[in-house]
Each structure stands twice: as structure tokens, then as C-alpha cells.
């Protein structure tokens, strides 16, 4: 068990800055997820913690110890990747034990650790089976077992589930979360899948081009994204963005979409954001999540000129408990998640109600959030 601290950590590969001045404090026993698009530096960050990549500058501490120059084997970490080797001629016991055997651990100690890991993973009854006789999920557990028997202070997992089919992946997410509860060990988990990040992480780090965009728990990340990148990356379908101008009318603020919409900003939101004033008359980006748009014809709450707009329906995708409407408004495409009893058809012009309490406004230039 240990905390992990990254201070001003940078990694350069020749001309590429893979990780750019990262500062991060991972608490003891925390489940921290690194998420971001391909090439944003997730694996590189993890490998630097593991000691598999040297850091170009900065410090990494595990526990209270600076490990910059500590070789991987002495860092008390264990890594889990998507591809692992299960040896077909060894039973499950030996597939978990061989690393300890090769490091010449005493027999009793190996036995204790393997049995304990098997118990935690609920695969005790499989110990004398060969890999061929295991299901995909059971194999994955053996691979986890191999990491567990090393009794590391920190688990480093790099997309361990990305080889599994969708159903098994969802199941293994839960298994890994449960495992973390049982082991009470620090986990750093890398994924490019925001759903995985949101369902597993105590806290989530969103990376882009090697730079941390935000560190927050799932709820805050969703409700208070720092910028348009985070807002667009977290949540499926992603947040809709519309260009607008901030205008004032009778002491109230409005998002003006050049004739296609005029949305009133709730007064409490405006009051909480005094800097809004500076944006008056300037271009901003209006952000609204698909679930905060609804079919106005079915709305129970009040529909006004200033909390609704019209959009053309391009595609109707029934999802069972809801319907996704793919819409166009001027040149923008957007998505609304509406009630299953909506009768909107392709080619219709539908009125959509905006849950204005949930909207966001971003600086069009910096893409940073205003509120």
C-alpha cells in the first residue's frame, strides 16, 4: 500500500513530448483512472511509474521514496496488460506461481500467496486446470492472480480488458472494482474508454497531448468539466456544442444563435458567474448534453421561447428506454436523448426543450469553461 506522486514529470521521445509537466497525487488505496484519446500519453505515464520508461525531467515518488533511479523490480509494483502469456502446459497454480518460483521464493510462501490470490479471485476450484479448460474471464483472473501473488504496493493496469468482448468486458470491470475493494491497494488504471473510466475510477485524470486537462471524481468530471475537450470526451453521446453570442436584454443574459435560438441563462447561474459580463457581445460556445434536450411536445415542464429551439431530424435511433435524435441546426449536427414515446420522424422539424439549469458556456477562444 502506498501513495504515488508525480511532480513536474515530463517525457520526451526525440521531438515528441509524450507527457508534459504532469503533477499528480494518487492517494494510498485509491483507484485512479488515466483516460484520454490515443497517443495522449497514458501508457507512457504508467510506464514511467513502473520504471519501464525513464523520465526526462521531474520526480516520481512511491510511498515516501523517490523512485526515479530505482529499477522496476524494486518498486513494489505489478503490471497487468491486455496481452499476457498463459502457458498451456502448466496448470493454473503454476501459471500463477512460476514467477515466484523463478525468483526463488520459499515453497510455503509461494503456496500461501497462490492460495490466497485464488481465494480472492474465486478460482480455487480451478487451480489444477490447464488454461485450455478456462473461459475468457477465468483466464483474465489468472493473469490478475499472477500480479496479486507478487503482493505489490501499487497495481498498474494498461487497458487490461481491451481484448475482451463487450459483455465480458463489462463483467470484468465489476470484478476488478471488487478486487480493488478486497485488496485495498493503490491502482492506476489506463483506458481510452470513458465509460470504463467513469464506472471504475475513484478519481479520473483526463489527458490530452500529454497535458492533464482535469482531475476529478466521475460526478464532478461530468457536471463540471474544465473545458470543451473534457466536456466532449466524457459522456456518450457527447455534449453538443453550438456557437452563440452572449447578449443582454432587460437585465438578463441570453445565448443568441443568430436567429436559430435564443436561450435565457438562468439568473442564479449568471449571478454565480460575475465574469460573464466580460463576454457580452462576444462569441461563446453553448454546451448542452443530449439528455438535457427533450421533445417539447411531451414536456411536463414549462416550454418558452427562451428555453427551446427548432431543429431538423436526420436520424431516429430507438434505444429501448429512450430515443436518440440526430439533428441539424444550421450547420451544426447535434444529438438529443428524448423520451421513448416521442413521435419525431426523419425530416420533421421538432421543437426541443433545453434544461437551462444544466447548460454550459465556454470561452470560444480558449475553450475553457465559463460556467
Amino acid at each position, binding site marked *: 500500500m502506498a501513495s504515488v506522486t508525480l511532480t513536474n514529470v515530463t517525457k520526451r*521521445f526525440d521531438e*515528441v513530448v509524450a507527457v508534459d509537466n504532469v503533477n499528480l497525487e494518487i492517494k494510498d488505496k485509491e483507484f485512479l483512472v488515466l483516460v484520454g*484519446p*490515443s*497517443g495522449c500519453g497514458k*501508457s507512457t505515464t504508467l*510506464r514511467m511509474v513502473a*520504471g*519501464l*520508461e525513464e523520465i526526462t525531467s521531474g520526480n516520481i515518488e512511491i510511498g515516501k521514496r523517490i523512485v526515479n533511479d530505482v*529499477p*522496476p*523490480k524494486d518498486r513494489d509494483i*505489478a*503490471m*497487468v*496488460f491486455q*496481452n*499476457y*502469456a*498463459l*502457458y*498451456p*502446459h*502448466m496448470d493454473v497454480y*503454476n501459471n500463477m506461481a*512460476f*514467477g515466484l*518460483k*523463478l*525468483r*526463488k521464493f520459499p*515453497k510455503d510462501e509461494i503456496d500461501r500467496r497462490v492460495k490466497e490470490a485464488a481465494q480472492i479471485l474465486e478460482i480455487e476450484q480451478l487451480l489444477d486446470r490447464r488454461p485450455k479448460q478456462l473461459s475468457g474471464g477465468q483466464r483474465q483472473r489468472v493473469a490478475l492472480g*499472477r*500480479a496479486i501473488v507478487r503482493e505489490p504496493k501499487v497495481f498498474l493496469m494498461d487497458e487490461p480488458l*481491451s481484448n475482451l468482448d463487450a459483455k465480458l468486458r463489462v463483467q470484468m470491470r465489476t470484478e476488478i472494482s471488487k478486487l480493488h475493494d478486497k485488496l485495498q491497494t493503490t491502482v492506476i488504471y489506463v483506458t*481510452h474508454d470513458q465509460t470504463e473510466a467513469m464506472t471504475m475510477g475513484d478519481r479520473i485524470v483526463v489527458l490530452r*497531448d500529454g497535458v492533464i486537462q482535469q482531475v476529478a471524481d466521475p460526478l464532478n468530471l461530468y457536471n463540471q468539466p474544465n473545458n470543451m475537450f473534457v466536456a466532449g470526451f466524457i459522456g456518450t453521446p457527447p455534449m453538443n456544442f453550438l456557437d452563440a453570442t452572449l447578449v443582454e436584454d432587460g437585465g438578463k443574459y441570453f445565448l443568441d444563435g443568430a436567429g436559430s435560438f435564443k436561450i435565457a441563462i438562468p439568473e442564479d447561474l449568471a449571478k454565480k458567474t460575475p465574469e460573464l459580463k466580460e463576454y457580452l457581445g462576444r462569441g461563446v460556445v453553448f454546451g448542452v448534453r443530449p439528455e438535457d434536450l427533450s421533445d417539447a411536445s411531451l414536456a411536463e415542464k414549462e416550454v418558452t421561447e427562451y428555453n427551446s429551439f427548432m431543429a431538423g431530424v436526420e436520424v431516429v435511433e430507438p434505444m429501448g428506454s429512450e430515443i436518440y435524435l440526430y439533428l441539424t441546426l444550421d450547420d451544426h449536427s447535434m444529438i438529443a436523448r428524448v423520451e421513448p414515446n416521442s413521435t419525431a420522424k426523419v425530416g420533421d422539424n421538432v421543437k426541443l426543450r433545453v434544461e437551462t439549469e444544466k447548460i454550459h458556456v465556454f470561452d470560444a477562444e480558449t475553450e475553457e469553461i465559463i460556467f
Partner: protein
Amino acid sequence: MPLTLKDIAKIAGVAESTVSRAINNKPGVGAQTREKIMEIVREHNYQPNQLAQGLAKRETHLLALIVADLTGPGYSEIIKSMEKTANQAGYQLIICNTDNNLAKEKTYLNLVGQHRVDGAIILGGTLANNNIMKLALNQDELLVLVNCLAEEVLIPTVLVDNARGGYLATVHLLEQGLEKIALVMGPANDFLESEKLNGYQQALADYNIPFREQLIIKTNLSREGGYNAFFRVMKIDELPDGFFVTNDLLAIGLTEAIKMGGYLIPGDFAVVGYGDSIISAVINPALTVVAEPLQQLGRLAAEYIIKLINDQAIEEVIRVLEPELIIRESSSP
């Protein structure tokens, strides 16, 4: 104006280096991203800069064989077969002896990272260390392990099932009607030795013969160790009727001791050795042994790395070979 890497990166919304890695089929790019990039490349009929591509695809037709300990059992035979296969396919094999020195190993592994060889075969060492793992994560198409296991990552591997060898030897003795089989082996914390012990135990279990701890003689892997093992065995209450010896040198010492004691092989004691070296064939009487498929091991390793270099699929990423029993005079009455 022709499209540049930069343009493609912009269209795909990824880093330029990611585009380069995708185009050159390097790892570190997710499948979806790769597909997206390749689609853009096709759509815009992008021709990679010839120089850039030439650099990435530069071929040396050299293979590095990285060995921790050149004196390993059967290594000369493995290496000869490896070299023959490589030569036939137009590759040269460079032998890199690391003497178990990690710094030396790192230097040799760098040959792969710097594309100064097309690929590397790691022979022995038993557990892939972090240098190897790091390379496998970055350049996973260019490494093959031989008789070496990897904990975290999947690297194409060819290895021999040593437990199976122990099993075959023991079953052969049991089939001769023997029941009290002594196992003369190296230190139990040596992984390969413990594998052979596992095979021995499995054979006894399959034949319903109780396992007796006192018949397990652990010693150092030397001629002297084998010699002394016999006299240790002679002190136990119930003498064995057969021996399974896990190593050449042990076998020489043991047979010497048996003969010194005035006993006959196989009349008084049957003996089965491990490893088909010249030694085992010239011992008198000629020794029955478990033989590892050394030539096959060398050939497959070379075939594997050449396939990887040429982007051909390998059917079994982990190939486990079985040893075979060569029956000579020392084991059958």
C-alpha cells in the same frame, strides 16, 4: 499540394507521431485510431515520404541471438540449428553472450530498438526481465523467447515442457516394474529442476505409487554431486531399484559410484538420465535418457522470428515442445 503527416494528423485529430506509427505499422496506436488514420490515408491517396518509409523499413537481414549463459545444456545444438534455418532464409545470426550481465544485455537489446538487427531471439534466462518487457511493449513484433517465461506480457515463445520430461522418465522406470525410484536432482529452488520433480510426482500419482520424500536426493549439479548422491541413497533403510537423474554431470557421477560399489546397471539399479549429450551415449552401459528436441527448438525459434519480421502469422504464439525418451541399455533388464 500533397498531404503531409501533419495534415493527416489534423484531420484525424491525433498527434503527428501517432500517424507515423500507424502508417509504419508500429505498436502504440489503438486499433480504432489506426483504422481511422488508414482510412484518411487511403481517401487522400497519401504517399509516405520515401525516406521516412525507407528508414522505418530498413532491413539488415541480421538476427541477434541473446544468450545469458553460453554453456547452457544443449545450447550448441540449438544454436547450430537456429543458424542453419536463419541462413537458409537469407538471415545471418549474431551471437550475443551476456554472461548474465544486465548492462550487457541492455546494450544488445538496443540493437533491436535501433533497428541495427531485424529481430532478436532470447535464449534461456528462464524469466523475461524488465529490459525484455520494455522492448516487447515497444517493438513486440521483433522478439522471440526460447526456454524463457514472461510474467506480464505476451511474447512469442518456444519452450520445452520439462515436467513432461520428468514424467516420461519416471513412467518408463515404472513400466519396467520398478516402484522405488530415486530422483537425483539439482537444488529444488531451480525452476527447471522443480518442473522435473513435478513430472516425477505426477507419474507416481498416476501409477498409484506413494511419494517418498527420502528418495528425493537434492544436490548441486555436478559430477561430484551425482557421485555422492549414490552413497547418500545407500544409507536409507529401503534401497531404491531405479534412478532418475536430471542432468548429464549428475548421471556421470552417479553411474561411476554405482559401478565403484560393485553393482550392475541395469541389473541392480536401472538409470534414466536427462539430456541427450555425447556423454550419455558413451557412458557404459549406454544411458537411457529424456532427450529435448534441441534442433526443433532452434529451427522453430528462427522460423518464428523470421515470420514476425515478415508480418506473417504465427499459429501458436506459445509453442511447447515435448521431450522424448531414448531407450538404451541402462534402464531395461
